[in-house]
Structures are given as C-alpha cells and as structure tokens.
C-alpha cells in the first residue's frame, strides 16, 4: 500500500512553520523551536482530524466539513474556530520568488458595504420529500428518478468500442435490470441458456411505447405531441429504441420531403431535437441517419407546397441550429464531423468559377446545373454555416459574397414571386450573418465604395448594417452566433470514415414503421452504394477522394463508406449538390447525372393521404 507508506510520519516541515510564524509577526523563529512546533502541531492536527472523521462518518458523509472539525475541537474542550465557510473547492494558488515556492489560498478583501447594499440572498429551498419506485417486484422501472439502465458513458463506450460488450460477462444482477420471470426461473433451475438472437429486442411495453410516441409526435394533437416530446427529452432507458426512432425519422424525412409536407418535417425535426436533449442517450451510433435527415431539412430545394406562402425558412433555421448542436456535441478528431458538415454546406455555395478551377473538364456539363442552385438551398447553406460560428462565416460565406450577391440581384430583378421572396430572405439573412463578421474583420472607415468594390451587389447594404452595428452600443453581440465554434477550413477531403454527409447507411429494408421490420445498420453493405438525391436536381454528393482504410478507432461495421469506384462517377466536389438523400429503394441506380425521379413510397398512412394540415403558427413558434 503505497498511500499508507506516505501516511506514516508525514508532518509539517520546518519551513512551513516558519512561514506561518512570519504571517503572525514572528520573524526570527529559530530552527529548533520551529522543529518542535512542527512536530507538536502535526500531532495535534492529526488527532483533531482523526476525531473529526468520526463526526463525518456519523453524519453519513464522505467529505469532511468544517463543522466536523468544530465538533472534534469541542470534544477535546477546545474553542471551535469561528468564521470559516466551506466553499466547494479550495483552489490553491502557487507563487514562487526569491528561491521560495509557496502554495496559498487566495483570500480577497470583501467590501462590507457592498454586501450590505446587495439584495438579500435567496432563501434556500426547503427540504421536501418525494417518493418513487426504485424496484417493482425486483425490476427497476426506467423512470427519470432512477438512473438510466445503461449509463451514457456505457453507451458511448459501446459505440466507440463494441468489443467491450462481448467481453463483458452477461452480468445478471449488477446491472439493475435483471432477468425476471421466465428467464430467472430458467436460471434458477440451472437449465441451458439460450442465447438471444437479436441484441435489441423490444418488450411489448417498449413496442407500445414506440408506437404511442411516434404517433403522437407526428399526429395532429399538439398537447399529446408536447407530452411525447417531453418524454423523448427526459426519459432514461430509451436507448434500446434508438435504432427504430432514428430510422423512423430518416424514413419520414425522405418521404415527406418529396411530398413537400412541411408540417411533418417540422415534427420530425422536433423529435430529433428532443432526442438530442435527452441526457441519458448517446446518439453517435445513429448520426448516419440523423445527419442526412437534418441536412435535408436545411438545404432541400423545396420543403413545402407553396414556397411563396409557407414559412419553410423557420424549419431551415431550426434544422441548422440542430446541426450546429450535433456538431458541437459529437465532433471528434476521428470523425471530423464538423469538417464534413461544413464541406457539405460550402459545396452548395460554391460558385461556378471556383468549381471550374478545382475540378477537371468533366465538370463542365454540371456547371450550369449548379449555377441554378435554388435560392432556398443557398439560404439553408448560409444558415447552416452561420450556426457553426463566425470563423466559418468568414472563410466560407464572406469569400463568396460577391457571387451570392449576383444571384440575389438576378433573382430580385427577375420575375416570379417565389424567387423574389427567396432572394429577399437570402439577402436579409446574408446581411444579418455577415455584418458582425465584417465588423470584426474591417477597420472603421466604412466607405460604401470600398464595400461595393469588395463585396459586389451586397456591398452597400452591408456597409449600412456594419455602420449601424458600430454605432449601437450592444452591437458586439448582434451577430447572434458569438464565436463558440471555430472550425478548421475543410479544404482537403478527409478520408476518414465517419458519420458525415458523405457516408450512407445501409438502407432500411422496408419503409414501414413497424418496429419488428426494421433492422440496424449491420445489414448488407452492397446496397449502400446508391445514393439518390430526391429533389429534382438529383446531384449526388459522395466523397470523390479515394477511400483509405479506416483508421483504427471507429469500428468498421458501424458505417458504410460509400466509395464509389465507378468510372462514371459524378464530380461531387464541384457539383452544387445540396441534398443528401438515401433512397429507400436502392434498386434505382443513378444514371449518369440525368434527372431521376424517385418515387418513394409513402411511409405513413397518414402522410400518404397528403391531407396533413399545414403547420400551424404555434408550431413555428416552437421552432423560434
């Protein structure tokens, strides 16, 4: 026991005694006296602390507190030390100088008048009692009051290193989720164990729960939906249902984006939000389904029936915020999540001249297509990038502002109400996003001409915004996205296989919400090669970079890497692909960049009827 060895005979050093003596005004303490003092003080302190331990133990605590010391002093007939408070942590400061090193606790002078004038501190909450079932007939129910059956760390470990799950013995009891009923009886009679085939087998209750939740989430009853979302956001123990939930969402988005059912898309995004908010879930394993769905809702060409009336902008904003949240939570150096997402959005903003330089001549045919990237998608891409932080805005939007300006200008001057509206929105959004960045970026003399020269069409308006920002006192924070996320410019395609937009999951076999029919992504990888863009632009984003074998960390079976080695591969880097979609019908093979219309089967009976009421206003208020 190494710590016990440390324990024997530790005591104050002569030096510290001298320092303490100095602090109370005794300057010339001789060494012998200091030694004597050190020994005696150490002994007395140890005795006091040993006694105080008893008080700590009887108070059923594992942390010594000042009251314990006071009580120990009282037992020994010593006056307690008054006036000490116990902060949660005592930060020791370190100082050195003149060859001496010192650790001390910084105590600041407190201004009494300040305390007196301050409003009285809040009264602490009164102790209250709350009852819940920790176990019902030996089984721990998964209610929020109980710890989740599988902790978030365990879920994370499982997703990072699935081998641990195999090596762990199937521990019966310690997990708190016990074998019950039949299994327990089997165990008791020492009979043969039958290994379960599926790792995730939902109990009847869980299936019911899944059904209820999904129905409530996409149903028309707002009250029930709120309850369902609350449950998704708070309940522990949902991890077993996660694969189904994620498939439900991704399938739902696929279908409804084709049908332009804005309401359902909003509901699905709110489900994603709720799941992200759930503290007991670790979603990394399912990002390959969530990210394409979310990005679709950001950049899809059309999300609603009547683009000129419906507020699909709110959905794009909301989804962009979700994407930023996902990036913040799950970005690691191995999955390069943020890099990939950033690249996805930036591609949509790529102006033709740039794409021309980057890619070979084979690009030319698609150039015109990409020039026509719909304004709504541009809006989404801008919003998506903006949520990722000012640095991203600076690198990816500011550099293309001239081209974006041309698009806006063209649309505004053109005919067609929807386009004009979209252009107006895009312009407004661009100005809002760019102004704070430009303000931080440029020195004060804001001359309209300079702006015009540098930023093209948007220059003058931008100049107005910036100077307005500069004049207003709170302008510093006007940008909304105040530098939280910074990102390395993802100029190089990253070869690492991670759940990003360039990765596709194996398709779910049947587009049906029935839990039994959905399997997880370990299925065949062959189908994964087809990626379809559903929106009519039909350009596919895949990673064109040659795929190197996966670095060791992420388990290879988790994600399917789309490494299309076909010769006729489209040029993804150049194509302004703005939508990543996975067809639920993998048999449809993309044909040479030609428009393909994919008819996805309706997933929901309800959505198939297309009678979904348009999103009510309160829906959108949730999004905001």
């Amino acid at each position: 026991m190494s710590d016990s060895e440390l324990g024997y005979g530790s005591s104050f050093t002569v030096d510290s005694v001298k320092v303490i003596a100095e602090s109370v005004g005794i300057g010339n303490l001789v060494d012998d006296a200091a030694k004597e003092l050190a020994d005696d003080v150490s002994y007395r302190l140890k005795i006091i602390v040993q006694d105080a331990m008893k008080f700590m133990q009887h108070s059923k605590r594992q942390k010594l507190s000042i009251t314990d010391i006071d009580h120990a002093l009282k037992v020994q007939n010593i006056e307690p030390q008054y006036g000490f408070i116990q902060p949660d942590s005592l930060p020791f400061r370190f100082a050195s100088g003149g060859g001496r090193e010192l650790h001390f606790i910084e105590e600041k002078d407190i201004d009494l008048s300040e305390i007196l004038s301050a409003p009285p501190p809040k009264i602490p909450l009164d102790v209250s009692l709350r009852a819940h079932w920790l176990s019902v007939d030996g089984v721990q129910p998964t209610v929020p009051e109980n710890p989740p059956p599988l902790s978030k760390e365990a879920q994370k470990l499982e997703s990072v290193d699935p081998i641990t799950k195999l090596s762990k013995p199937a521990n019966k009891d310690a997990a708190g989720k016990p074998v019950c009923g039949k299994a327990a009886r089997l165990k008791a009679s020492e009979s043969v164990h039958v290994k379960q085939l599926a790792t995730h087998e939902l109990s009847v209750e869980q299936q019911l729960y899944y059904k209820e939740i999904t129905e409530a989430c996409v149903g028309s009853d707002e009250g029930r939906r709120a309850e369902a979302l609350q449950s998704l956001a708070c309940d522990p123990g949902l991890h077993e249902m996660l694969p189904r939930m994620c498939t439900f969402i991704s399938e739902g988005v696929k279908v409804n984006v084709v049908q332009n059912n804005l309401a359902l898309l909003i509901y699905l995004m709110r489900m994603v939000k709720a799941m992200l908010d759930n503290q007991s879930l670790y979603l990394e394993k399912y990002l390959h389904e969530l990210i394409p769905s979310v990005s679709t809702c950001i950049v899809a060409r059309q999300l609603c029936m009547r683009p000129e009336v419906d507020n699909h902008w709110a959905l794009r904003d909301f989804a962009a915020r979700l994407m930023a949240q996902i990036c913040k939570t799950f970005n690691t150096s191995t999955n390069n999540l943020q890099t990939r997402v950033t690249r996805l959005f930036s591609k949509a903003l790529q102006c033709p001249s740039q794409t021309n330089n980057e890619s070979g001549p084979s690009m030319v045919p698609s150039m015109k297509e990409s020039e026509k990237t719909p304004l709504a998608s541009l809006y989404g891409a801008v919003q998506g990038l903006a949520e990722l932080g000012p640095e991203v805005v600076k690198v990816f939007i500011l550099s293309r502002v001239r081209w974006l300006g041309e698009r806006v200008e063209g649309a505004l001057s053109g005919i067609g109400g929807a386009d004009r509206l979209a252009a107006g929105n895009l312009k407004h959004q661009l100005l809002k996003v760019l102004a704070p960045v430009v303000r931080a970026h440029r020195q004060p003399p804001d001359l309209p001409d300079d702006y015009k020269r540098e930023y093209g069409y948007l220059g003058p308006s931008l100049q107005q915004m910036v100077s307005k920002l500069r004049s207003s006192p709170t302008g510093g924070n006007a940008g909304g996205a105040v530098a939280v996320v910074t990102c390395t410019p993802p100029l190089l395609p990253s070869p690492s296989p991670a759940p990003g937009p360039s990765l596709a999951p194996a398709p779910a076999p049947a587009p049906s919400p029935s839990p039994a029919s959905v399997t997880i992504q370990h299925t065949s990888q062959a189908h994964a090669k087809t990626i379809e863009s559903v929106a009519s632009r039909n350009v596919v984003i895949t990673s064109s970079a040659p795929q190197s074998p996966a670095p060791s960390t992420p388990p290879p079976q988790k994600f399917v890497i789309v490494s299309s080695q076909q010769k006729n591969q489209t040029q993804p880097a150049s194509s302004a692909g703005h939508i990543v979609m996975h067809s639920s019908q993998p048999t449809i093979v993309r044909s040479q960049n030609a428009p393909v219309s994919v008819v996805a089967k309706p997933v929901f009976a309800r959505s198939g009827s297309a009678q979904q009421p348009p999103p009510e206003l309160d829906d959108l208020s949730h999004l905001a």
Partner: protein
Amino acid sequence: MGDKSTPLLAVLQLLRKYNLKGTEDILRKEANLGDVEYENLDLPEVELANILTAHHTESDPYSYEFAYDSLKKFVENSLDVYKYELSTLLYPVFVHMYLILILYDHNEHAIKILEKFGPEQDEYYQDDLKRLCAVKNKDQVKGNELAEIYSSNKFQVQLSRDASTQLKRYLHEQKSSPIIINIIKNHIQIDVCDGPGRSHAQVKSTLGGLLGEASRNENRTKVYYGLLKEPDLQILPAQIEDEEEAEETPDKPKKKKAKKDNIFMKKPKSDPNAPPNDRIPLPDLKENDKVEKGKALREAAKRVQLGPECLPSICFYTLLNSGHTAICADICDDSTLLAVGFNNSTIKVWTLTTVRLRGMKSADKLQDIDREAGDVLVRMMEEKDRETCRTLFGHSGPVYKVSFDPFKTMLLSCSEDSTIRLWSLQCWTCIVVYRGHVWPVWDTRWSPHGHYFASGGHDRIARLWATDHHQPLRIFAGHLSDIDCIQFHPNSNYIATGSSDRTVRLWDCLTGTQVRIMTGHRSTPFTLAFSACGRWLASGGGAGEIQIWDLSSGLPSAAIPPASNSPIHALAFSRDGTILASGSLDSTIKLWDFAIISDENINEENGNAAPTQKEDKFLLRSYATKNSPIKSLHFTRRNLLLAVGSYDGSV
C-alpha cells in the same frame, strides 16, 4: 537528563511496594533524588512493569528490529498448521515495539521500524497504524487514545496447544534477547485452546479487532436468542379480527379463520432458546397498543413471502434540497411516519399516508372533552391541523439518530449535544431530556416492546434506559472505543453494540454483563440488525463489508466482502427473514439471500464451520439510485421495502 531517574523511581516504587524500607533509603541516598520526585512517586502499574522489564534493553534500540525479524522468520518457517495462528502475534509485538521505542526516546528507531514493517501488517490494521504513527514522542503517548488502549489492555491471541508449545520453545531459544518475551508477557494474552490448529480462513474470519480476537471463554454464556411468546395476543387479536371479518367479508369467514390461526400458531409453543417471558419485566399493553398490535398481526397475514424468486418492491423516498444536511432517518413500524434528523439540530416528521399530522387541542378545549368516551384519543386531537410535515426543535447539535417507538406515539432522538430527547407525537413537543452521556450520542434505539431504550456514544458506554427513569437502568462498559451503533434484540432481553474497536458485543439487559464479544469486522460497524428469528445478527461496516454473526456461538457465520469502499449505514431484514437488504453511501441498495446464509450455517453446524466468502452466491440484486446515499431501510409489515436517501446534487 532527568529521564534517567525514571527507572530509579520505578525501582523505588517497587521497593516501597514490597515494603523494603532499608534498601529504599540507601538507594534514595545514593541516587541523590529530590524529595519532590520521591513524593510524587506514583507510576501506573503497567508502566512500572514496562520500565522495569524493558530497562536493560533500553540501551540497544537496534535489537528491536532484529528481534522482530527473527520472530517473523520463526512464524514463516513454522509448519502450516501453526503458521496462521502464530502470525497473529506479529502485529501486537510490532505495535508494542514501536510504543516501547517511543517511550524510551528512540524516536528515529521507532519511525524506522514503522516504515520497515508497517506496510506488511494486515490491511485492516493500517488505519490504526496511521493513527498510531501520529505519536512521535513519549509525551504524546499519554493522552493518545489508541496508545493508551494498547498499553492498558492486553491483546488477545488465540493459539492451539501445539502452536503455543512451538512458541514457548522459540522463546526459550531467544533467552538472550528478552524483548519479545517481555512484550508477550506484558501485553499479550495468549488464549490456549485444545484441538488442532485452525486453518487460514478460520483464523482470518475472527481477526480484525482492535485488540485481537475474542477469547473463547467469554462467549460461553448461554444466550436466549429465541423470541418471546406473546400470550396476550393469542386471545385479543382474534377478537378484533372477528369484528373486522364481520364488517369486511361476512360471506366467507371460515376460510379466513383457518388461515389466521396458522399465523398465530406459527410461533413455536416453547422455543428452547427463548427466555422466560418475565425475564425482563415488560410493560402491560395499553388498550391503544393492543389495537395497534392487532393491526400489525392482520397486516402480517397479508405479507408477501419473499425469496430469490419473489423480490420485494422498493419504494424510495428522496429528500430533495437536503444536500448534506440530512443525517438519519427512521420509519415507524406501521410505515406511516418518517422522521429525519438534520445537521442543523432539527428533526422533521413527515406523514407517508394521507393521514395528516394533527396536534393536540389547547388545554381549555381539552377540558370540554368527555374523558370516559371511547374515542377520547381521537377527540383530543385538533381537527383543523392539516400538516404533512412537522419540525421538532430542541437539540443543539446534529441529530445522529431518530427512532419511533413501536406504538407510534413517541420519538427518540440523540444528538451531538450529548442528550437524548423523547418527543411526543401527539403534542409535538419534547417531553423528556435524558442526560447521562458525556459526549456525543451516536445511536439510540427502542426496545421492540417499548418502554426501554438503549443508547451509546463517544463515551464508550452503552446505557439502558426506561422512559420513566431519568437515570439509566444499566450501564454497559467494556468497549475500548466509541460505540457507533446499538440495537435491541427482538426479545428485548439483549442489546447489541458495535464499536470503533471493531468488535460487536452482546449485553444482557437483566444482569448487565457482556455475554458475547464478536470479532472479525475489519472496519467500524455502523449499523446492526437482528434477524427476524433472533438468532442472527448482521452488521454493516465502514468499509462496506457485512458480517453475519451467530449468536448461539458468537462466531462469524458469513462475511460478505465489500462491493465498494463506501460504508454501509442501513441494514434491514425482511419480515419473514429471507432477505437482507443493505444500503450504502455509494447510493446502492443490495438484496442478499439470507435463506442461503442461514441454511448453510445450520447445515455446517456439525462439521467445521468455515465462513463462506462468496459474494455472488448471496447477492440477489443491486439497485442504484441517482446520487442518493441511503440513510435508512425499512420493511413494511407486508414486506415492501422502503428506503430513504437524500439527493446529493453536487456529485
């Protein structure tokens, strides 16, 4: 050095003791000792012996290390049969070597020997060693709790006859260096018993006490661990039941009656181990108490039979916003009230049912009540009170234990302010303050039959009280360190105490003597629980281990090793005695299969009982809570487990 005179003074005292006047005078003259020192000649007996016997080795501190090494080699080289028994000698010899070296000012040597041999001592002694090593010079030996315990008591070691012969032979060889001989002679009590040497596991199971093992002779007394017969209830509840039956199920009374009879007949007519009913005078049951008892029996009839197949449901009461302020909790026998003692000297009582906590009416209103009325107890309560929680003020220090009396009319609490208070749950005030303890009182418990209660605390003395006496009825002294927990035997004839000296003792309430001393705990026991049948005692330790003791023999019958290092502060047996629940500060509740534990021991009784140490065999289930360390566990009469914990948000 003035210290040189100490041995001379010792010799003088010895001469005086034997009344050798002439020699004494000559020595005094020759040594030229002052009168003052001579007059103050009053060395304690033990120290005197210490000084005299160790005097000539005093000059040679180096020999200690050598001597310990030699003893260690002797133990290691002896046959396996004796080895484990003999190895128990090493620790006390080592401790006393350290103390002697300190006493004779060889401080550096003492520290050296501590650093050399300290780490190789058994793990459960390390805490003691750490406390002991604070003692660095001889002034500190006096007044140090642990050093005084060691020097004024003898360490108990049990050896078989053969092993002790081996030891004697060895000591004989070592005549030239008498250090070890002196230590063994002065500080170690060797308990020689016939029979073969014990195995490693056997030796280990009883080791761990501050002063070694319990000697066998101390546990010879017969303990009446059986349950009392309950004669009065055989008639009374039946009649109550009849009334109830008439109301509730008039159609099939016969069936129920048969069932009920079973319950009342279940208690063996004459348990050979049960004490006579009048061994301890028990208070007569009041009318109200009888009703309460009847209710209890009826509830018990609806009890769920628990077992590994049928685990109890657990209802967990979380104290929110309590942080570290809540210390202890207790739930009354019929599971309707919860009391919690706080750091800030208050006690709070919650009702766990819809019945509100009503106080008594004011005095002038009480005058109007007809005292002959049958429901006078109900009438005297204030109807307007709707409180679900009441706070009791009175203590002036942290409340370390609260305890409901069996009839739910009173509450006991003990506190750091060294008092025990009795509270009325009818007028919600303090009725009596029991003073007697000098230092903080750690634990207090009611007798299962009411009227009596026991307490124990920092002053190392357990006391037995009756509610109508302000002085304790019995004082149980013998523990060497704080009494940390106390528990009444279900038949009210015995009291069990657990102490920081890592022993659990059983005291007879009638005679006031110690009838069992049980060693084997490796850390301080913090909670005790008697099994429903009265034969077994479970204790939960500060390091998270649980020990099961057999009261008939005083031997440990099972040791459940700790699952984590957090202390166990709550233990409860299910009402049918098949399941033991433990709650620990690491926020888990564990259920243990007690039926296996007790069965095994009964089976093993004929053969050599080696305590089983397999944890998973006994563990049924473990339930984690959300950062809520468990303060208390309680089985309701229907075998539902109630647990109380306070949510600790800071972790």
